């Protein structure tokens, strides 16, 4: 049987492994259900990031860094902003004003649905990246 270096946290480690998928799933739920119920990109991003922060607290920063390296995180932060801004540019290409989602589909309400979906996804990705980066920043101080 493979043993982890810090064996006395065995219970925490097992529970964490059990909890993390649910945290991630709940994050996704809050993200994509945000336009029907309470939620949205910011909250979802924080929840999603909290799964990784929990992983970092229990298994150590090094192993979390193997999962999500700072380079990937920077890429995430940038791509979220780009998704948000890109949605704005697409609405302008379709002839509407900046972030006027109504032009995205034939039916204005459908267009608004798609628009807010993309924008919130961008927010979620960026917030996840920023939260984990903040955690890395604080946790890696000597």
């Amino acid at each position, binding site marked *: 049987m493979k043993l982890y270096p810090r064996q006395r946290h065995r219970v925490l480690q097992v529970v964490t492994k059990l909890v993390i998928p649910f945290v991630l799933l709940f994050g996704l739920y809050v993200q994509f259900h945000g336009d029907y119920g309470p939620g949205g990109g910011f909250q979802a991003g924080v929840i999603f990031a909290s799964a990784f922060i929990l992983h970092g607290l229990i298994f150590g920063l090094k192993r979390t860094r193997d999962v999500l390296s700072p380079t990937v995180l920077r*890429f995430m932060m940038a791509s979220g*902003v*780009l998704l948000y*801004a890109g949605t*704005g*540019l697409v609405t*302008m290409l379709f002839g509407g*004003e*900046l972030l006027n989602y*109504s032009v995205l589909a034939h039916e204005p309400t459908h267009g608004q649905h798609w628009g807010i979906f993309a924008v919130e996804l961008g927010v979620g990705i960026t917030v996840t990246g920023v939260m984990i980066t903040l955690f890395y920043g604080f946790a890696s101080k000597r």
Partner: protein
Amino acid sequence: MIDQFPALQIMVPLVAAPICVMIRNPRWSWVCAMVASTLAFLISIILLQQVMANGVIRYAVGGWAAPSGIEYYIDAMNAAVLVLVSGISAVVLVYAYRSVAKSVPAEKHYLFYTAWLMCVCGLLGIVITGDAFNVFVFLEISSLSMYTLISFGQDRRALTASFRYLVLGSVGASFILIGIGFLYAATGTLNMTDLAARIPDSESQRAVLVAFSFLTMGVLIKSAVFPLHAWLPNAYTFAPVAVTAFLAGTATKVSLYVLLRFFFSVFGKDYSFGQHLLNGVLLPAAVAGFVLMSLVAIFQNDLRRMLAYSSVAQVGYIVAGFSLATQSGLTAGIVHVVNHGMVKASLFMAVGCILYRVGHVHTPSLDNLMKRMPFTCVAFIISGMGLIGVPLTVGFVSKFTLIEASLEKGWWAIAALVLLSSLMAIVYVGRVIEIMVFRRSRETGPESSGMCEAPLSMLVPLYVLVGVSLYFGINGSATLEVAGRAASFLLGGLQ
């Protein structure tokens, strides 16, 4: 296409910034920033032309009409500031490539250019928006990226300077936010045009007064008006010099624009200067600022610090112009915003060239620099003349209009003090020129005799800026016309 330009003005740097992060390569991220900055500059010129030809441009973000949605509102005033900010950003960015390559580690270059683009985006956003809360949002974007840019400085003291600016800047920004919050409570709207219409008949005049006081304090901190300037000298001294050139030309100027926008367009001239005697606060601060800070600048041995104190003094001239609250006073203030932006940016660029070759800017050891870096020194001298206000330079145009405006109002003492502080400017600029040109070199080593001019990619943008400022110095009517239009817009209120 052309009706989308107000949005593109913000979107171009905003989209380019994350692309810079993804590129990660120093050279290509610079190219990306350069392309975005140039595009933003072209857009702002077209917008200025449109405004001068057809009047105010309005753009409803998201298609939501004005009072409820966010609106971009462009008149002669902010169109001119847009051109100033994006133009200085484009010119200094050309210059920044070599300067930053030397002072910032290569693996951080892409982050530097990203922060630069976000800063440009924030500054342009503050200027273009017609929504009070949006001003705060963009203010935060630009301030946060500014703190980052300053902390890129080589000297470790850059970090403390940046932190100090962060603390004071956050205080200023939260004061502005509190002010906007009170305005919203008193009127129920955030749109500037709507605010201007509703403030006079608001039932809670006390809340409006609180908002007014908070906004005044916040904006005065952000624009480094004399007693609240403590963050500025260190930030300008220890930031990478390209950043200083950019910030000196744009950051405080944009805060001064916010001051104008709130005091004249939102609260209205009668409220700010009639009812509440803002000139009782602004004018003494401004006058004390330009006299004392010019005096302090004389005793500085670090060239950058000397210019930083002189910047606080120049903000004093601008605010003095504003607090006259007349057509000619406002014109003088606005013209000096643009003129001083150009002059100070080119001075700091010249300082950067010296720093690039000599390695320090300790004034007494710059003897005989004229022999070694003639082009840089000539540019420094021309821009220094502009700072003093010698005829045929931009400084003369703005100081002349300022003195004229104060005489028109019968404030002789102000005019005399402006002249006095100009004399001090002759002392502090003249001292540097004297050391550079006339003092014999003490050491006669081989390295002090040969010519070692700064690279062409730094000299060309420097001379472009010097040339533009000379042009506007000789043809003063070009800037004065735009400033006059802007002043009458401000005094006339929002349409």
